[in-house]
């Protein structure tokens, strides 16, 4: 039953929130308190956050800018961005030694000038797999052929494909079929009826709610998920349970752990 007002009826853990400014686009939330207020407005309890600078300029420097957004209350879970460079790997290793990593994010590999191919990414992906750290990969900046070629060499590595759009429609099913440890984040995936169809075909455990705030509002996809054929159990998985499982035991260690 639809109403003019909406609140989620299951716990919500947003898998995809960007904080901080892009060079040409100041973020609407200027600090942690403002972001938490925005989450409260839509009933989002927790969020995985990464910094905008990691996407556009420097994963290493952008990761440092994530620190002021974190605190001990654990509602905001840091996601560290990476490139397959020595400096980036050294930063990840140090964060891992402090038990502060629950997930890692890659960005547009073609913009970075390095294709997502085994010769370029195997070292980084093998390290993530060895540490049981899941990896987020934005689909808009990825090549589907490279994704399959490179990720299938690391069959135990858990990944989340972020930001699929209707222009990726023909890629989504083959990617989920070929890469059984891959999940689909839903912030932009709007082809009609497809959330129910994918849940039927691949299982609701392969789908993850994310908003990709501040590019997109937090509310619309949450509303959509609450008005599908998903059972209450499936809805709870998509809105939070799957993300908790993906982040796994490292979540408990990493959440709320601020820089020493």
């Amino acid at each position, binding site marked *: *039953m*639809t*109403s*003019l*007002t*909406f609140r989620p009826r299951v716990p919500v853990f947003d898998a995809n929130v960007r904080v901080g400014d892009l060079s040409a686009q100041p973020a*609407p939330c200027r600090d942690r308190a403002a972001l938490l207020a*925005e989450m409260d*407005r*839509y009933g989002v309890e927790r969020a995985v956050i990464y910094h905008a600078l990691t996407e556009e300029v420097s994963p290493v420097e952008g990761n440092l800018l994530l620190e002021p957004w974190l605190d001990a209350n654990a509602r905001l879970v840091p996601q560290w961005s990476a490139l397959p460079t020595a400096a980036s790997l050294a930063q990840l290793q140090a964060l891992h030694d402090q038990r502060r990593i629950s997930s890692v994010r890659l960005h547009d590999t073609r913009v970075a000038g390095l294709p997502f191919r085994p010769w370029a990414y195997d070292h980084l992906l093998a390290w993530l797999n060895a540490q049981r750290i899941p990896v987020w990969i934005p689909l808009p900046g990825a090549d589907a052929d490279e994704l399959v070629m490179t990720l299938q060499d690391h069959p135990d590595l858990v990944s989340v494909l972020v930001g699929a*759009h*209707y*222009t990726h*429609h*023909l890629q989504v099913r083959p990617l989920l079929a070929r890469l059984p440890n891959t999940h689909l984040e839903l912030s*932009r995936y*709007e*082809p*009609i*009826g*497809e*959330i129910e169809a994918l849940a039927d075909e691949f299982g609701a455990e392969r789908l993850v709610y994310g908003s990709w*705030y*501040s*590019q*997109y*509002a*937090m*509310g*619309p*996809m*949450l*509303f*959509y998920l609450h*008005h*599908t*054929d998903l059972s209450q159990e499936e809805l709870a998985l998509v809105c939070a349970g799957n993300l908790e499982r993906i982040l796994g035991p490292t979540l408990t260690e990493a959440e709320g752990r601020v820089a020493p």
Partner: protein
Amino acid sequence: MIDGIQVIDFHGHVGRWDRLGMLDEPARMLHAMDAGGVDRACVFNIFHPDGTTGNDLTARFVAQHPARFIGFAYVSPLMPERMLPELARAIDSLRFAAIKLYPPYTPWPLNETPWEPIYRFANARGLAVILHTGSEPQSLPRLVGEIAPRYPRANFVMGHSGNTPAERDQAIAAAQANPNVYLETCSTFRTPGVIEQLVNEAGAERVLYGSDQPLMDPRSQLGKIITAQITDAAKCQILGDNARRLLRLTG
């Protein structure tokens, strides 16, 4: 129906676009509409420049569920000799309720001469015209602001409200300057605060809910309206009241 409001989706398509997952299967569309509380959807077929082929497909689609779908006429200045006869047929014989135009499929910006016969037709009949608007040079919202005062009995609905921020500002300015300009909300760009901006700057009485179904699901686009920080009265206007008024719906 949402809280007693008959919800009307002002932007929907007939036709298949398999590459993008767009399938005009009535059962799939009605399932999504029912799950979200959408009562009726306006639909058109923009894939055939002759107008007739697509309008006949639209008519057959609507005829399967006439209480749920409302047909709009499509014509193109790529075949100028067919425009007015086809519009007359679509409105008078097929009983379509409004006109859809898609400037990106033509070389002409929407304020240029080839479009004028369509605007004159709409003006003479007092019809609504929904135009795709966006960043393409043919579809800039400021061009709607130029044509609207010349056809005061027609109502111009800007599909996507310009889509991206700079063009959205143009769309709002055109609506502020012209009482016969409206803003339709569907967009894959679900920017935070976009609905609030449209309502606060143009007025809720000028905003129309649309989804672009079946290219996109009507529920995610409906969620933009429901979760916006606006009054319930504004939501009622956007979700149905404004569309009912523009299309002169009584049922």
